């Protein structure tokens, strides 16, 4: 068959399949990320159907997916939110990092995968899925809860931490020398600071340059700028994703809102391809050997995230119930764990088993996170045996 025809047929089949999976995920109230990964496993090497024609396209598409994921993440925050968030949550952020980076890194060391893999696995277990967490908080009607700002502040800290972590990771994966790595980190820190300053002072100028009332022009400018910045950042070995993230932060106000609105469907499309490609490149037969480790890691890092949220919420004077809610909201891991693992696997600097472990781990955590968040309250009630209603409040609104 002609290659173009084959590519179209395979791509169409994959997207259709993802559509069905996404619909299924919506039906059962799940994040579609684990289903997309399973979809990739299904189609990829060692899966039921092996695809050849789409690989080239999907590799590029998945790169674009990462750039759009990070660009959208940057668009969600204003520089001011990031700076104030950082000031308020740095201590909780550090506790979060230490508690949740360590289990992943330790597992990699114990398995004898080496220090590069430890850096990768630490990142995978460290970062919560802000996408899943925000959705869970909204779905469970917790936007007005007192612990919610604490949870969001930790997520903001994590996302900013990615701006430092990803360049470090890129440098290490590229096998740069210590001095070279230090240089890269220096450059990226400088760029991060510079962009924050520009966004704080001249965010409106950046926005005005990108903005247009014509949707088509706006979309082209935005994606053009994002890919260009991402490419340049990549050439400087600062990580394409970080470049896109910083561009997103520099765009502010109404322009950012419009940009987020028109980019959302595109982001969803390309990000879905990204997850599938990650699944495609993972051999399903490599999963059973790492299942035990993944389960153990899931249990441990659920506990450490709950501990992090509990501790951070208690510092804000939140009650026990709120602390449990805060902790459980942070458990889900998702898109960024896969972004990290994807970077590592693509570079070839780590063992393929790492991809299997990361996939299995994210599959578990993306499902477990929302479930735990939902169970936090009933579980606490069971533990504490809270009387249903105290007499004084009997006249108040039913609760």
């Amino acid at each position: 068959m002609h290659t173009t025809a084959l590519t179209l047929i395979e791509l169409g089949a994959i997207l259709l399949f993802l559509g069905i999976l996404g619909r299924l995920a919506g039906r059962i109230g799940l994040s579609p990320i684990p289903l997309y990964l399973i979809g990739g496993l299904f189609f990829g090497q060692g899966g039921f159907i092996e695809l050849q024609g789409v690989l080239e396209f999907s590799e590029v598409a998945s790169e674009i997916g990462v750039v759009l994921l990070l660009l959208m993440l940057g668009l969600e925050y204003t520089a001011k939110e990031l700076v104030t968030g950082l000031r308020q949550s740095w201590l909780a952020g550090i506790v979060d990092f230490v508690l949740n980076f360590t289990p992943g890194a330790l597992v990699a060391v114990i398995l004898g995968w080496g220090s590069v893999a430890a850096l990768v696995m630490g990142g995978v277990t460290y970062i919560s899925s802000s996408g899943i967490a925000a959705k869970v908080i909204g779905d469970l009607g917790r936007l007005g809860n007192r612990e919610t700002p604490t949870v969001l502040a930790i997520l903001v800290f994590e996302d900013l931490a990615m701006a430092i972590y990803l360049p470090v990771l890129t440098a290490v994966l590229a096998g740069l020398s210590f001095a070279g790595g230090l240089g890269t980190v220096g450059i990226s820190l400088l760029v991060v600071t510079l962009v924050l300053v520009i966004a704080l002072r001249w965010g409106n100028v950046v926005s005005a340059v990108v903005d247009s009332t014509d949707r088509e022009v706006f979309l082209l400018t935005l994606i053009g700028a994002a890919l260009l910045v991402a490419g340049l950042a990549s050439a400087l070995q600062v990580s394409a994703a970080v470049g896109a993230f910083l561009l997103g932060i520099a765009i502010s106000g109404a322009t950012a809102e419009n940009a987020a609105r028109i980019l959302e469907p595109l982001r969803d499309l390309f990000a879905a391809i990204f997850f599938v490609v990650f699944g495609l490149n993972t051999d399903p037969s490599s999963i059973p050997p790492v299942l035990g480790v993944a389960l153990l890691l899931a249990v441990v890092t659920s506990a450490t995230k709950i501990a992090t949220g509990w501790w951070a919420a208690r510092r804000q004077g939140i009650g026990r119930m709120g602390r449990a809610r805060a902790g459980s909201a942070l458990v889900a891991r998702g898109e960024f764990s896969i972004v990290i693992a994807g970077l590592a696997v693509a570079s070839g600097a780590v063992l393929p088993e790492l991809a299997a472990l990361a996939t299995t781990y994210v599959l578990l955590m993306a499902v477990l996170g929302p479930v735990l968040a939902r169970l936090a309250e009933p579980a606490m009630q069971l533990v504490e045996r809270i009387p249903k209603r105290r007499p004084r409040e009997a006249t108040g609104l039913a609760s």
Partner: protein
Amino acid sequence: MNVIETPLPGIGVRREILTGSGRRVGIVAQRDGDLDLIISKAGDPDACVASIPLTPDEAATIGNLLGSRQLVAQLTEEHRDLPGVTTRQFLIERGSPFDGRPLGDTRMRSRSGASLVAVLRSGQVQASPTPDFTLAAGDLLVVVGTSEGLDAAADILRNG
């Protein structure tokens, strides 16, 4: 009244008050324009018993309902010594004949004898509006008059 404002990074802003009964009542203004009315739980002040999404129309109407009570009570109190004069409120509904038309078009005073003393919109009071004031759906009109006059006024607002 002290309004507590809490930024919710990536989502929007929460604005709330602490009521005398110890409950938090407020709104979450999401960045995409959605509004949620929030009321804290009695047993767990950190959590919310309700988080109700409101459209801008609904939010404005709730604002009017909450704000008008005081105004109407005050006017009723002032007219207590005038027998036969009462205060009543009328809502301009979506699809009302006067939605989007100036107040003068109703010719309310000449046709019913009742007089419009204030319009509440989005929780704000427009006192003694002039005839060129444009009415809109969701506006709450505070009208003073005799009970027959008020009935006539209701008929005018409903049927044009």
